[in-house]
């Protein structure tokens, strides 16, 4: 029994080693940047600044009930977005379109939510969430189908769709769905469609939903025939076809599911935090999700922890900036460094003298493979 637990822990650590080391390395280098930049700011050159900054970052993320709630609330959309990307990776697909799917989901949730603003809470919330998910799924299905049918690379089509979506929604909110009575173009109040707050000031229903999604996707991938099909298509599309699986169907379906999760991320953020859709709302969740999926190695549990980490960065950064004058933007630098080190894992192995373990890095290999390969033969 104890041996089994130990083996399980060892195997987790094997998978987690590199991400953890990448985080450590990123924090170390960001510390150097903080010290260097301190020389040019009001604080003056101050070698211990990173310790204070990181201390406050930690306090802002985990130091109180409020901080903890903020972390969880910030992590929820990242979890859903990370799952969207990670699920795609499992099928050998790189869905860069989560940003667009996030916006579509947020917009659909806002529009449907405001039209149900006086409906009973369960109905309003459920219908708005579903609307957001479906909008994302529809947006994901397009590049999925194009990839399966014509071999059009999903990276290219999703990037183009991101732009198309953002512009289309900017027009929609200024014209089609603009609510009367506001000085700028936005959708109406969501009223009872807002996700109920469960704890404290802001911990909304979206947080447990995101956690549930993690375990649902994990179950889907590991335990169901559909998950088997998705993994088979991702690992060896030829063998999948041979086995009677239709890569065309699975690629389209996986991109739709991925889009659904991306749309849900947008809906959760809209109904739980933002409250109304206006032109120019941030779709940064879409891109941070890529980082989350890479850091989590496409594994749902890994994505859970990666999202919590990135959520903590977001939640803790304001306190860090207020108390130590280290700008919030340092978080972007840390995130970028983490991704850099994950991509250039050779550097991390060198620095920490970790031996290479081939075939362990599923997410990363999948990405390179998708880039290298063209269409799925149908």
């Amino acid at each position, binding site marked *: 029994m104890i041996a089994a637990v130990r083996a399980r822990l060892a195997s987790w650590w094997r998978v987690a080693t590199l991400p953890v080391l990448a985080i450590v390395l990123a924090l170390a280098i960001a510390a150097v940047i903080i010290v260097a930049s301190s020389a040019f700011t009001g604080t003056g050159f101050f070698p211990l600044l990173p310790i204070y900054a990181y201390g406050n970052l930690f306090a802002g993320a985990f130091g109180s009930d409020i901080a903890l709630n903020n972390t969880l609330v910030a992590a929820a959309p990242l979890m859903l977005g990370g799952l969207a990307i990670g699920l795609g990776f499992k099928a050998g697909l790189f869905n860069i379109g989560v940003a667009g799917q996030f916006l579509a989901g947020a917009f659909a949730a806002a529009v449907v939510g405001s039209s149900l603003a006086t409906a009973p809470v369960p109905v309003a919330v459920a219908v708005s969430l579903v609307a957001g998910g479906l909008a994302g799924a529809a947006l994901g299905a397009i590049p999925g189908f194009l990839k399966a049918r014509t071999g059009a690379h999903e990276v290219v089509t999703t990037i183009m769709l991101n732009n198309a979506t953002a512009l289309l929604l900017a027009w929609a909110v200024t014209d089609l769905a603009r609510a009367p009575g506001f000085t700028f173009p936005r959708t109406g109040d969501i009223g009872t469609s807002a996700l109920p707050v469960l704890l404290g000031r802001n911990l909304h229903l979206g947080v447990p939903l995101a956690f549930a999604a993690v375990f649902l996707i994990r179950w889907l991938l590991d*335990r*169901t*025939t*559909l998950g*088997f*099909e998705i*993994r*088979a298509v991702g*690992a*060896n599309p*030829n*063998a*999948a*076809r*041979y*086995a*009677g*699986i*239709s890569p065309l169907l699975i690629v389209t379906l996986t991109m739709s599911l991925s889009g659904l999760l991306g749309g849900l991320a947008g809906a959760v953020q809209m109904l739980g935090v933002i409250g109304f859709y206006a032109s120019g709302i941030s779709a940064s969740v879409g891109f941070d999700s890529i980082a989350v999926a890479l850091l989590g190695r496409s594994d749902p549990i890994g994505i859970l922890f990666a999202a919590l980490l990135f959520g903590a960065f977001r939640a803790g950064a304001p306190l860090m900036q207020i108390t130590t004058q280290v700008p919030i933007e340092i978080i972007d630098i840390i995130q970028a460094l983490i991704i850099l080190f994950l991509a250039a894992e050779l550097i991390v192995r060198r620095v920490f003298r970790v031996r290479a373990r081939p*075939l362990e890095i*599923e997410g990363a290999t999948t990405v390179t493979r998708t880039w290298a390969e063209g269409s799925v033969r149908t």
Partner: protein
Amino acid sequence: MSEGERAVPGAARSSLPPPALEMRGITKRFPGTLANDHIDLEVRPGEIHALLGENGAGKTTLMNILYGLISPDEGEIRIDGEPVAIRDPADAIARGIGMVHQHFMLVPVLTVAENVVLGAEIMHGPVLLDQAGAAKRIRSLAEQLGFTIDPNARVEQLSVGQQQRIEILKALYRRARILVLDEPTAVLTPQETEEIFAVLRRLRDEGASIVFISHKLDEVLRIADRITVIRRGRVVGERVPAATTEQELADLMVGRSVSLRVDRGVAHPGEVVLEVRGLHVRDDRRHEVVRGVDLDVRHGEIVGVAGVAGNGQEELVEAIVGLRRPSAGRIMLRGRDRTTASPREVRAAGVGYVPADRQRYGLVLSFTVGDNCVLTEYRKAPYARGVVRDERAIRRRAEELIAEYDVRTPGPGVRASTLSGGNQQKLVVAREFGDDELLILDQPTRGIDVGSTEFIHKQAIAQRDAGTAVLLVSADLDEVLELSDRVVVIHRGRVVGEFDAASAERERIGLLMARGVAA
């Protein structure tokens, strides 16, 4: 070195120069296995020395140690009597060791000359390559070996046999005197094999030492001067071809008495299961490679398709199993039209299929052995109930298949990529053999050892005797002749001859395979 000085097996040892290569007590442990267990190997100058053993016996490990790709735990390597330390391939090359791998290490878009000099370029000043000089040396090297090659041809345009000769040129260009060839004939046609043998004999006669790794008994007997047999990491015997037989070598290699001939009774063909009429199929480049094939396979018979690889066999099979849509013609399974059926529909109609390329089609290498055991049946009970997979049932099934088909693996939970080639093939065979109406075997024993081949052949006969219709496609004519009740010869996408196994003449079929006509 002149012919008179050449090491003659059995000649008095005192008159011999020191061995060109001596490996003493080489031991290499991998987690869980002893890959090499105090192996001694001695190769004389001007000798072709065969290293014979089953897949996983430790042949490749030994040669990788020689080439500096892995380091031994124990043992010593001597070259020309001098102890040497070989830490990496650069050391090995400097010592005159050349390696021709089973999978060619060539860059397809570069020319022959560019491939040969890659990494050992002759420079013309600091930046320019001396291409004319390289081409000249390659031509003269090839001439010495008795063949001609255009140094400016692009490698991708060459046949597999020609590519292999380039690999040999590469080694000789680096002045190799000890040449290691890892399963060099696995990918060659019989004619190409003869050609490569001629090259090797010529090299030997000029004093080179050649280590020829193989598990093909007849080839080893034809080409080798001496044969070292290894089994499970140990040397189990050394023989000279004149004083041994295929049977003895096979028994040594496998460690028990094996039957090289397939015992089979008469076939009792029943009704037609597979009926192919006027089938035309295009390949990936849209060339028509199957051009009007008619074919019948009945219950309880094995129909062998003989043909040189690349004459449309692969596409024919892919069309039958639904992986490729025919451009014209009809495919009927038990009287029902299945011309445009999907792979899943074909499987549901009772067709088992062992594909030619087990790593590309037959297995998902990153999946576990267990998952691969149910790769084609993962949706069916008891492996799935509704959409939920039943891990326990899958595991039980895997354990059954592993035991029944003697797949050597630590268990169902390890990745399929960790299995040796022969065991991967056994895994595919285990999964596909069962109560099928039609069983399609495409190159079922390519690249696998005697023991596994014997096993797979026996299983194929057993399937036939149980009433299954079996379609066998193989580039190995011996295999086709041995297993089939009827032989169909395919050439350039057409059936050019059909024989009863009893009346089939090897020569005639060989000519039909090569030229499409028997005269």
